[in-house]
């Protein structure tokens, strides 16, 4: 096959895979009937589906190409970015997820609006859009590099355009349900593909001992040097990724917020992030880095030449270690993984544009159908904007350099404003404005006068070359400078605001910083919650024709089984567990009537939830 690294069999596998995934994604468009479904997938999914879908997004953003390149250069240290997120999990699981879930916050700008009003919301939205659009650009650029490595005759930009069009089709058609379901398939394929390459590579090298023995000593440390020399080997990645980017990814990234809100309950979202961080992330770290590690060992024993191109090492090792057909499948998984991130980001930005700009300000009061169509138009526009950024990121030496420099510069004000708002009730509007205006200004200054970063650089040696632009100096440690400077202006600004301008410390309504879980549940339920919830039973149901409410009539036998009382919140779900909640609905106990018999469910809930009359359903008391 001219211009294609693999064989005709590989190409056929790739084409069949993409036709299949397009049909699969479009199928789930039937579960998108409103903007709530489009963006949040109707808050219906089980934890395991949210977790796997989340890891597909995470892995997609860091990609096989980028981390194989890093592992080839720096060895096991390339796994750092996947294994340094755990420090944020208590705040995420116990603080942030309950806040957004029980307050029904649909986006981060909405959070700032409720807490500080429209000025802070507008500023945050502007910065957030910049962050997410930049992320789309980086992902499309990485996609272009991946396709270019696979088909050297196709240039990076045309390759990125082709994949952007393809991704746009199923996100635009299907919304969040499509994204989550296609992510599930892609994540599994991707992780299996990465592990297969590892074992195939080990086989080529003659065994695990030969592989490890061939790795240079510098490549064997998980906290070793990454992206140049410094006095503390991992310090650059710790600040750029562990502190700034990990927080931004889990808390600020609209794509992840949508993932959490797609879960059937806050408890399921918590389970998803814990499983993701503890189990899936380490597996994913090795799946994406394996090819680089195997490639480095292959160079050491002479299987690959010394001058092998690091950016193509994933494709090179995959091609060498696998056979026709499998190579095609792995390449399909590679591109699919990158698309997972792009599609989530596109859906996330579209959600912010509709829910934070068009619906409240520019075109209020239109029908839901109108906003749904507007969201689909946005998906196309966002892809076009992301493509326009591809040439900018192509100007950096490596993909990780572009990614690191971008995130270290853009995330500090976003991270600090949200962090202080979550943990500190006394953080007022003046403090938030100080971070978003003065903090952003000070980070911008560092792009033109990078010497200001040196006191924060922990002894990192700047390896800037003569003629390089100033922003390439300390690209990683800019995150440390930005975080500490923004924290300072936020704390001082908040203090001055409270003292000089009598800024209120905390709004009278809602619990928008880490607070009592019971209070949050109480306001969500509008009644006294049972914090242990979680009781469930399988039962038959009958339809209440013409009823559009969310109140079900529960027989006494079922009510005593799940400890339900009038007003309790229930989750009704098709009893097939493997569907992960795709066919499900949320309901409220309206009345407890009769000793036994079927559960009576309003027709509206049955239709919206896709429940099948002939099948029993699983009824779970949420609270």
């Amino acid at each position, binding site marked *: 096959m001219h211009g294609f690294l693999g064989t005709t069999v590989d190409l056929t596998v790739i084409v069949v895979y993409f036709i299949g995934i397009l049909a699969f994604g479009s199928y789930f468009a039937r579960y998108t009937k409103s903007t709530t479904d489009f963006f949040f997938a109707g808050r219906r999914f089980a934890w395991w589906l949210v977790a796997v879908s989340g890891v597909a997004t995470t892995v997609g953003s860091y990609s096989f190409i980028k981390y194989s390149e890093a592992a080839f250069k720096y060895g096991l240290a390339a796994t750092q970015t996947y294994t340094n997120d755990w420090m944020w999990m208590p705040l995420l699981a116990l603080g942030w997820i309950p806040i957004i879930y029980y307050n029904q916050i649909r986006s981060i700008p909405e959070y700032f609006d409720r807490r500080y009003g429209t000025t802070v919301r507008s500023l945050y939205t502007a910065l957030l859009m910049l962050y997410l659009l930049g992320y789309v650009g980086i992902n499309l650029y990485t996609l272009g590099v991946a396709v270019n490595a696979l088909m050297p005759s196709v240039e990076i930009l045309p390759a990125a355009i082709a994949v952007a069009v393809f991704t746009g089709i199923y996100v635009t058609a299907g919304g969040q349900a499509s994204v989550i379901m296609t992510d599930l398939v892609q994540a599994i394929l991707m992780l299996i593909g990465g592990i297969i390459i590892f074992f195939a590579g080990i086989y080529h090298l003659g065994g695990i001992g030969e592989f490890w023995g061939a790795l240079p000593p510098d490549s064997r440390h998980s906290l070793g040097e990454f992206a140049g020399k410094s006095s503390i080997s991992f310090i650059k990645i*710790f600040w750029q990724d562990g502190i700034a980017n990990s927080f931004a990814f889990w808390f600020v990234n609209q794509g992840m917020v949508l993932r959490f809100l797609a879960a059937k309950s806050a408890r399921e979202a918590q389970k998803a992030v814990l499983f993701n961080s503890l189990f899936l992330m380490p597996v994913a770290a090795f799946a994406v880095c394996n090819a680089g590690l195997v490639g480095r060992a292959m160079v050491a024993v002479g299987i690959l030449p010394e001058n092998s191109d690091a950016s193509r090492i994933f494709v090179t090792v995959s091609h060498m270690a696998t056979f026709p057909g499998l190579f095609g499948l792995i390449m399909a998984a590679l591109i699919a993984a990158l698309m997972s991130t792009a599609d989530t980001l596109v859906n996330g930005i579209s959600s912010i544009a509709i829910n934070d700009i068009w619906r409240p300000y520019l075109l209020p009061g239109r029908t839901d159908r109108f906003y749904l169509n507007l969201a689909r138009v946005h998906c196309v526009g966002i892809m076009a904007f992301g493509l326009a950024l591809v040439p900018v990121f192509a100007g950096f030496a490596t993909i990780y350099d572009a990614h690191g420099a971008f995130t270290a510069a853009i995330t500090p004000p976003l991270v600090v404003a949200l962090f202080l708002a979550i943990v500190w009730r006394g953080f007022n509007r003046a403090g938030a404005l100080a971070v978003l205006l003065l903090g952003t200004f000070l980070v911008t200054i560092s792009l033109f006068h990078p010497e200001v970063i040196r006191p924060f650089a922990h002894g990192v040696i700047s390896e800037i070359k003569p003629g390089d632009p100033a922003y390439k100096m300390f690209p990683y440690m800019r995150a440390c400078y930005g975080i500490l400077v923004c924290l300072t202006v936020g704390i001082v600004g908040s203090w001055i605001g409270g003292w000089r301008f009598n800024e209120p410390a905390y709004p009278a309504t809602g619990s928008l910083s*880490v607070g009592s879980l019971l209070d949050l549940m109480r306001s969500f339920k509008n009644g006294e919650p049972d914090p242990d919830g979680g009781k469930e039973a399988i039962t038959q149901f009958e339809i209440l024709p013409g009823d559009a409410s969310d109140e079900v009539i529960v027989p006494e036998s079922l009510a005593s089984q799940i400890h339900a009382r009038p007003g309790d919140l229930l989750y009704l779900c098709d009893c097939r567990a493997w569907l992960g909640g795709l066919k499900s609905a949320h309901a409220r106990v309206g009345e407890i009537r009769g000793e036994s018999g079927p559960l009576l469910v309003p027709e509206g809930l049955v239709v919206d939830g896709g429940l099948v009359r002939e099948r029993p359903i699983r009824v779970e008391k949420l609270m």
Partner: protein
Amino acid sequence: MGTEWTSFFYLYGVGGFVFVGSLILARKRGALDLETRDGRKVLRYLILGYAAYIAFHALTQFVLPAWGGP
């Protein structure tokens, strides 16, 4: 002390401060309710996860690099 140890202690010192600080804040404000089954379970998983990462980094930073193969 070599840079391997400095990196390890920096990660689990600064990272540990964030981790433990968040737990204390959550406990103090009632976001982590140890009276409930769910609260105890979440705490157990969080601590187990943190310990697993410490073990992973200790193994891959100090033990495996010195190992020449089986």
